[in-house]
């Protein structure tokens, strides 16, 4: 029943254009999309905070778990790898080495895992109100950064208690964290789109993150462990983003650990590449998150 004009537009579309109406299903350009997300930064903060409250609402200790969980994690790894398996050989300050590895890796693992569920988990909100869906994985990242901040304070205390001195290298820590957060956000956005499409990703993700943890040198030194293997194996492990950011945090905080300049370059490369790819990839899926 639609009347079509010579230039191919229907009369209804012409009427709409004449009066400046905009398509309700149109996704804005990437720039406007980012702007409209930025305008909702309070919404991101509120969502992150609501989730933290929710997460601990049924437990007696509440948010103290934010402190206890990373400490328990570190203790278990210390017992298994430091004491029982002896992966501490050749590492001067194994306690600080291990705690840095566990905390830095956990942030990445927990964030990408939670982000993969961020679209289906907010189903009610998506069905009720129209807003850029980018706020949902971003809220996950913000919530995990808050948790990470607590872990980092614990880490700094442990590093100092184990005899590491304060050095000028500590000033590089904010740069390392900024790179790590950019990388993690990008990765989280990719998984958020996958997670919106199928629930299967949630089943597979634990296997991926566990493998990633084992190849990232969380509780052993990649250099020492791969010394007898072909050089390519060691290089591949060292350059994976998980190992890179763990390595850089250790380099910042510990005089007993130092990173090759190539690791610093890779830290920046992974951050920029993942963030841009993740942002564009998530944005391009925007239409798919509503149905």
């Amino acid at each position: 029943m639609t009347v079509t004009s010579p230039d191919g537009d229907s009369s209804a579309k012409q009427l709409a254009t004449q009066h400046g109406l905009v398509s309700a299903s149109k996704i804005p350009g990437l720039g406007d999309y980012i702007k409209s997300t930025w305008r909702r930064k309070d919404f991101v903060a509120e969502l992150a905070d609501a989730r933290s409250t929710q997460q601990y609402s049924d437990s007696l200790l509440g948010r103290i778990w934010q402190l206890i969980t990373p400490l328990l994690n570190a203790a278990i790894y210390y017992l298994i790898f430091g004491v029982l398996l002896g992966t501490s050989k050749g590492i001067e300050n194994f306690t600080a080495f291990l705690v840095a590895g566990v905390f830095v890796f956990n942030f990445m693992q927990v964030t990408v895992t939670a982000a993969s569920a961020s679209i289906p988990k907010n189903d009610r909100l998506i069905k009720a109100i129209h807003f850029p869906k980018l706020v949902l994985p971003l809220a996950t990242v913000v919530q995990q950064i808050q948790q990470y901040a607590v872990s980092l304070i614990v880490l700094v205390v442990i590093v100092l208690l184990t005899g590491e001195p304060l050095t000028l290298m500590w000033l590089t820590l904010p740069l390392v964290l900024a790179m790590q957060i950019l990388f993690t956000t990008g990765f989280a956005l990719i998984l958020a789109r996958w997670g919106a499409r199928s629930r299967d990703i949630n089943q597979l993700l634990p296997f991926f993150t566990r493998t990633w943890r084992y190849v990232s040198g969380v509780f052993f030194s990649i250099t020492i462990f791969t010394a007898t293997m072909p050089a390519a194996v060691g290089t591949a492990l060292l350059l994976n983003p998980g190992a890179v950011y763990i390595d850089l945090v250790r380099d910042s905080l510990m005089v007993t650990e130092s990173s090759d300049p190539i690791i610093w370059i890779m830290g920046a490369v992974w951050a920029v590449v993942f963030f841009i790819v993740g942002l564009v990839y998530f944005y391009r899926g925007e239409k798919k998150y509503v149905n």
Partner: protein
Amino acid sequence: MSTNNLSTSKIPTVVVDDLNIKYRVILGANTGSAAGALRSLVSGKAPSQVVKSVHAVKGVSLTAYEGDTIGLVGRNGSGKSSLLKAVAGLLQPSSGDVYTASQATLLGVSGALNKSISGNRNITLGGLAMGMSREEVEAIRQQVIDFADIEEFIDMPMGTYSSGMQARLRFSIAAARQHEILLVDETLSTGDTEFRARSQAKIRELSGAAGTVFVVAHGHAMIREVCNRAIWMDKGVIKMDGETNAVLDAYEADVAEKKAAKEAKDKDK
């Protein structure tokens, strides 16, 4: 069968152009065998027996103008809610398009935005999601609480509310803001008589303010009272579009006729 004799000088606010909406309904993802799931994973195709495609809206076109309050009627599953969701940008059209003068807001019976946080925080969340600033949210907070009449429960998790209370709060959050285009979906059938009266007054107020309102409601008396135009939808298409009483009379006659025919058929058996 369209009785659309609206003058061209009116300003359009919503233009629906040959809209089609289909959606896939997953009837249970894990009901098939593991082998079947593996096959579909390898072939990249969704297992056909568990996914059903529903053609909810079939080639609907309409134009709504400033000051219009339009009642949508039709049987369950006739596509009324899907049409409203597409206008609000909450559903992607399969083909065709919807053009709006500004972001339309849908007032639905969807209940709590987040069941595990308090009503108060749901107000904040809903307001911020609609694009309000924190100051704007604070400015409307008391008004929302009063309108929904849930003062004493406002700090309790929304999951503990009755469905009527949830619907009231949702309606109040969305209605607290001035909307050019407001879509009301069945909200009025929940809640008590007093709240129904209050929300009807609110809709009249909003439609009076040069906006455009779409209302889906089972109560025809309410549609006759507040709407200047009605659209009758049947199986995804517009069966009639025109002056409220004419459309409702025709729809009610059709419903009565079908009912009589069904009763006669039952008697024959």
